[in-house]
Each structure stands twice: as C-alpha cells, then as structure tokens.
C-alpha cells in the first residue's frame, strides 16, 4: 500500500465513523426526555404557538425526514440553526473552536514535554527513590479530577500569588487582531499566535498568562500516561545494543538519551497522542468550565441543557472530524518517523 492510498483509505474510513457517531447522537437526543419546543414557552403554553414553533424548528416532520434533512445539509456544509436562539450553528462553532484548539494544542504540548522529560528521567533512575517519586506523581496527576486541580491552581496562582488570572481568555480590550496589512487580515483565532502576528508583546504575554493555568491543568492530568509510557519504552531502549554502541563511541549522555534512544521510544508515545486527543476534548469540557474558557466544551454542555439538537449534533460532528484529523496526522507522523511503515 502506498502512502497515498493509505491516506485516502483513512479519510474514507472517517466518513462512516462520523455517520455512526452522528446517528447515535441524533437518536439518543430524541430518546432523552425534554422537548426543545417546550423550553421556549415558560408561562403561556398556547398549543397553536407551540405547533408554529415546532414547524419553525423543523420538528414537525417525521424523524427520518429530519435525519435526512440534516445529513443533506451537512453535505452542503450547513450545520443548521440553533433550536434555542435560531443562530447559525456553524457560526457559533466557528467562533468557539479556536479557543478549544488553542487550549488543546497547548495542553498536549505541556503533557508531552512533562511526560517525556519525567519519563526519561524515571527510566534512567530505574528503581531509585527518584523513579518512585516520578511514578507516584504520574499516577496522582492521572487520577486527580481536572476541575479540582484547576481550582487548586486558581487558589495558588490567582488568589494567593496574584500571578495569573483565574479565568477568562484575555483581558477585555486586548484581543489580538492578527496580521493586518491594508485590507488584508490574517487571523487564526488563537490569541497567542495572533498577538505574534500583530507583533504586540503585551498582548502575547497577556494571552499566555490567561492560557497558562488551563493548559497546565489539562496538560498535567494528561501527562501521567506519557510518563509511564516513556518510562517503560526508554527502559527497554536504553538497554539495547545500539545505545551501548553509541555510548562506547564516546557520545555524551544526553545526546545518547534524547538524540538516539528517545527517538526510538517515541513511536508508542505518538500513537498514544492520537488516542489521548479524544480524552483531551472530554477534559476540555471540564477545564473550560473551571476557567471560564469560552470554547466548544462549554457550548456543548450549555446546549445539552437546552436540548438544542442541532447545536449538539454540530459539536459532535466537529469533535469527530477533529479527532479523525488528529489521528490521521499522528499516523502520518508515525510513518515519517518509522521507515518500516513506508515499506
């Protein structure tokens, strides 16, 4: 199988995955008690007005019609209108997605960096007190509820030390605009990147200050699995002949560990990265609430409460595509790092 056919087959496999996901959510939402129409009528339950609302929301049609309407819309790139405030779901998701993406990328980076570093250190110090401490750290961070860790950080760094803000995404008025040259504007929606594009150091530092606590929280919770994985892989790799050979040639310790051994021990970590991404999005739902981070996770929770079918379906589709893209990217990276895949 060539790399191209591999990629194409992966993309094609994503489509049924999204369909299964979407169909499941479509059915579950409608099986759950609670009616989006009723939520529009707090006090006066006029049957005619309620029927008009049902028609307005497209809920008067048979379920199968609703399903196919939605699927056809999806192919046109239309995620429908919210059943709560009638706004475009795509627009709302588009507005919230960059915040979640920024949080996810940053958390993943932190998780991998901490995971790799502590994993390597742990494997080098195998069965010593240092190793035990790192292992306990990994287990504790993995087991700790993300909202609890978040609140502890808020108490220490926000309330106690006043170093970092306890919530929100940026100080009002400091939202970066990105790169603006005449009429041309390049903006990613990721505040840290946009502030660099704008060349504004104050905004960049502010964006990082707001980003640090939520991503550190989520990163720490995710790092445990990377520590354990790196540790066990490195433990084996460091005992392989090529490492001994490298050492025998007089290469220094860190070059051997990080330059040679880690690259080999890195492959399972990459696979785990892809798998962890789904977990990361789940964690983002809680982290976003704890840190008042205006992302997709909060949007999803909010809309479940309103039984906003279209909005929930929209978020699930986007999350599904997101996870599919990431796992595809991870596979490609795997292929790049491991020449055997390309054979």
């Amino acid at each position, binding site marked *: 199988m060539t790399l191209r056919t591999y990629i194409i087959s992966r993309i094609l496999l994503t489509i049924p995955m999204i369909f299964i996901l979407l169909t499941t959510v479509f059915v579950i939402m409608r099986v*759950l*008690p*609670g*009616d*989006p129409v*009723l*939520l*529009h*009528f*707090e*006090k*006066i*339950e*006029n049957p005619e*007005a*309620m029927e008009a*609302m049902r028609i307005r929301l497209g809920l008067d049609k048979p379920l199968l019609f609703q399903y196919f309407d939605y699927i056809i819309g999806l192919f046109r790139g239309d995620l429908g209108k*919210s059943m*709560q*405030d009638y*706004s475009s779901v795509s*627009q*709302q*998701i588009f*507005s*919230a997605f960059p*915040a979640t993406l920024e949080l996810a990328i940053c958390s993943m980076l932190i998780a991998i960096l901490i995971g790799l570093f502590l994993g390597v250190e742990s494997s080098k110090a195998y069965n010593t007190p240092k190793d035990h401490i790192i292992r306990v750290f990994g287990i504790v961070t993995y087991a700790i509820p993300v909202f609890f860790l978040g*609140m502890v950080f*808020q*108490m220490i760094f*926000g*309330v106690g030390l*006043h170093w970092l*803000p*306890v*919530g*929100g*995404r940026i100080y*009002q*008025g400091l*939202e970066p605009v990105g790169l603006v040259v005449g009429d041309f504007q390049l903006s990613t929606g990721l505040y840290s990147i946009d502030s660099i594009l704008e060349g504004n150091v104050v905004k960049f530092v502010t964006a990082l200050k707001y980003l640090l606590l939520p991503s550190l929280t989520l990163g720490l919770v995710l790092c445990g699995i990377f520590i354990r994985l790196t540790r066990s892989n490195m433990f084996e790799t460091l005992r392989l002949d090529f490492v001994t050979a490298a050492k025998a040639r007089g290469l220094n310790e860190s070059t051997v560990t990080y330059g040679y051994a880690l690259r080999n021990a890195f492959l399972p970590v990459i696979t785990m990265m892809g798998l962890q991404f789904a977990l990361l999005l789940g964690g983002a739902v809680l982290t*976003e*609430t*704890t*840190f*008042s*981070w*205006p*992302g*997709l996770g*909060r*949007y999803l929770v*909010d*809309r479940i*409460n*309103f*039984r906003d079918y279209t*909005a929930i379906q929209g978020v699930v589709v986007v999350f599904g595509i997101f996870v599919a893209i990431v796992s595809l990217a991870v596979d490609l990276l795997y292929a790049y790092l491991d020449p055997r895949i390309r054979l």
Partner: protein
Amino acid sequence: MLKLNLKDTKAIGKVMIAAILIVIIAIAGVASYYLYTTQGPKIKDTLIMGTTDSVESCLDPAEAYDFFGFEIIQSLGSPLVEYEAGSTGSMEDIIPALATSWEPSADGLVWTFNLRQGVMFDSSREFTAEDVKYTFDRGIGIADEDGAFVGVGIGDIIDSVTVVSDYVVRFNLKIPFAAFLSLMAFQACYIVDPTYAPMSGASWSIDDIVSYADGDARASNPMGLGPYTLKSWTRVAGKDTKMELEANPLYWNAAAGYPKSKNIVIQFYADSPGLALAMTAGDVDVAFRQLATNDIATMKTNSNLKVWEGTGAFIQYLCLQQDYAPFNDPTVRGAVAAAIDRTALVETVFQGQAQELYSMIPAGMFGHTDAFESYESPNYDLTRELLSYVGYNANNKLEFTLWYETSGHYPQSAQQALMLKEALEESGVISVTLEGRDWAAYRTARQQEIMQAYIMGWYPDYIDPDDYIFPFVHSVGGSWIHHNYASAQMDQLVESARGTTNTAERESLYEDIQDLMVDEVPIIPLYQGGAYAVSKPSVKGIFLDITQNWRHWLVYIEG
C-alpha cells in the same frame, strides 16, 4: 511696627513675595474647597464587574426575557417610570423617568402620561410620544413567544396606545389593571430607538427582532435614551465573552451626574467558584450573580471584601398535583403544609442566606401576610391529625414522589429536596421518594402532569403582588404550572384585586386571597431568596432592593 520704606527695594521684594504667596494660598484654598464641595471624592472612570450571567437571546425588549438581558436593557434604555433605588416595591416608590407625570382614569382603563421634553436620541432626533407608541405597537405586534410581551401578556392588557400630542401619550387598556405603573417600569416596556429597531416588512413579525450582530454593537442594540451606550459586545458560541458600556452624554439625567462610572466593563465567568475566585483575587471590582451560598459564606469572612445583602424577590414553592389522588384532597395538602420545616431549609441549605416564606407574596412587599404561619413550620401533630381523617397513619403512610430539578436552574435543588423529605418523614406518617431531572426533562414532566409534588421557583416580572398571585392560583393565569388548581371564589378575588386601583381595597383583597390559600392549599410557599453582591470595599452605590434591578449608573469605585 513694620515701616515700609519705598526706597528699600529689598523690603518691597519681600512684601511682594509674601503677597504673592498669600494670593496663591488663597486661590489654592478656594479651589480645593470648590473641588471638594462640588466633586466630592474622586471616582474611577472604569468599573469592572464580574458575573456568571450571559444574555440569553438578545437585547431587544421584544424578545429578551432573562435577568441579565434585562439588566443591560435597563442601562441602555429608559422607561416611562422607574422604581427609586432602595424601593420596597410600593407604588409610592415609582418615580418619573421619561414621563414626568401620569394620571389614570376613574375606571382604571385609560392611563395618560406627560413626557419629558428635550430628551434626545442623538443630536437631531428628539424623543416624543410617537416613540412610546412605536415601542408598544412593536412589542405587541412582534408577539414573540420567547419574549416578555407574550410571557406577561402585555398584549392582553394594553388595547392601544394613542399619541395625544408630542409630549402626551395615552394607554387604553383592555382590562382595569392595578399594577399598570409597575408594568411600565418593567424592562420589556423600555423605549426603543425606532432607527435601530425598524420594521422590515408591511407589518411586525419575529424577523424584526434585533439580534446580536457580530462586531457591530450598535446594530445589536435597539435601545437608546439610557445612561449608557453599548461600546462593545462579543459573544462566542451564544455566550457573552466581552461587554463594555460607555456613558451616554445625552442621557436625560446626565446633568445630575449620572451615570457615576464612565465605563463599565463586564467580565464573564462560567460558574460561581470561578467568579468568587476572580473577586477574591481582585480581578473584578464587583461580583453580582450567581454566587453560591458557600462562596458568599467564604467571602463574608474576607476582610478585603464587602458583601452586600439585600431583599430578594426570588421565591420557591412546592406544587402539588391536584388532578388525581392523593393531592386532590385539600386535607392531604394541608397535612403536607404542616410538615414543612422552613427553618431547617433556610439555615441548613442556605446557611441563613434566605428567608422563611409564609405566603406567595414575598415579605417586604405590599399585601404580604404570614398566612401560612397558621400551619406552623412544622406542626407534626397537625399533620398526623389531618392525615388520620383520610385514613393515613404510621402503618399506612401517605406515600408520594417529590421531584426536583438537577441542572442548576434553581439553587441547591437536591439539598432542598433532601431536607424536605427528611422533614416530611419526621412526621412518621409520610413516606417520600425523591426523583431528580434536568431542567429540560423537568419541564416535560411538568407539562405531562406526571409529578405528584414538585419544587418550582419564581422571579417576578413586574413588582406587584399580582405577579405572585395571578400566575399561581388563578385558573387561567396559573395553567402554565399544571397543578390543576381551580376555584371560582379564588378567581373572583384575584380578578377583583388586579382590577382595582384603590390601595386599601387591594390590600384587603390580598389578605382574603392569602387566607383562602391557607384553607385550600393550592401551593405551598417555602422560602424567599436573598440578594447578594460582593465588591471591593471602595465600591459604592449598590442597591439590592426588591425590584432586583441592578442599576449600573449608580455604582462607582472611589479611587
């Protein structure tokens, strides 16, 4: 004695310097006196407010029907009349705003308002009676089911609005409505700016609602004439992330020094712990809504913070399904009413941050009586006695399911339900099963009338006892609550009370209504919530009165 020799230039120089110093000191003295007496303490230009609220739909009074939407509408617009800060909700507390005086007709069916002159929307457009008519024709015409015009039934009260002259407007009512002035102070009745709230077709429709427009605060806001203008408003995924209010120089009360703070910046937090932490860390100057009981209790112990306590208008009550047994019998309902331990509820669940409630009309409001105190709280002997009449005893307990809401729509619902269950079962003749649902499922269950007993809550629309009586015990007004209580005698009393403008007569009618409620127990009042805000000690001008109005234009920070 000092003798001045005019030829001694040195001496002349000294005298001149002394004279100049005296003059400077005198000017400085006068200036500082002037500054002190006319300006008072220095006020910071910008006040940062933190909240967990968010505008639910939009800032159009034809659709908005949520606390925060109303809070902002109140800052961006003006009503004909408003409640004085610190009000107890009495008619006497209603003061002029865009109307300077008013007069009802003898039959209560026509209300005439004289309007303030010289109030400007912008440099060229003056506010007139046409704008009042436009606002009400619009709200009633759009008739959005989500909005307060339909929710409160403003179109069922107002028949038409007539422009008598530029500065005189007349409301012709369909029914005599005693609380009409309160209704005029209600946020749905704030005057819109026709330029920013235009009619798109030949008649009003829901398409004319002014919705949020990304990146264009002016186009997102149909209001005008208020103490503030909307400088910026950003929403991400249907939730507010940024909002700035800027003083409106054309505000009709600007000459009196309002608004106090030039700019209000609102920071949004996801939940109470987030907001409480931001307040404690000093990220915001003032925190208002929704702070949980625990967070308020913690902040009360913090000497760097000031906790403001006020009168709450939020009430919670127990509904009993009267369409079928066992609660179709008033004796059984009375037995339950006698087994409610309000003290435990208020002290344990709300840590004293709420008040026991013995009537549907909250304490501190005109017409309130502690009618349900006759059941005591609790009186288990009475519960046992009443239930024994209908065959229930320790061996044959009254069994029912008590439902509560689980998604945070009401405060501490699960704890409340548990506390009620314990109190009811303490009687020894009642057995309660608890059942929780999230708000959406709870609403469906309410409509399906499958809940035997269920806890509900109420925020008032207009500040009048009518808004605490008509929607609960009137057979038509209370149909939304689905408890199936209907009494011809009650309907007649309620209709009489909302129809008369005679205060003494109304008070007496509300007393009769509350007495009848004790006899028939259509609904059981539980508690009245408190109103809380937390601020830095230098923040002034917060009024938490029964109107629940948050008056941005009065709040300021000294610095």
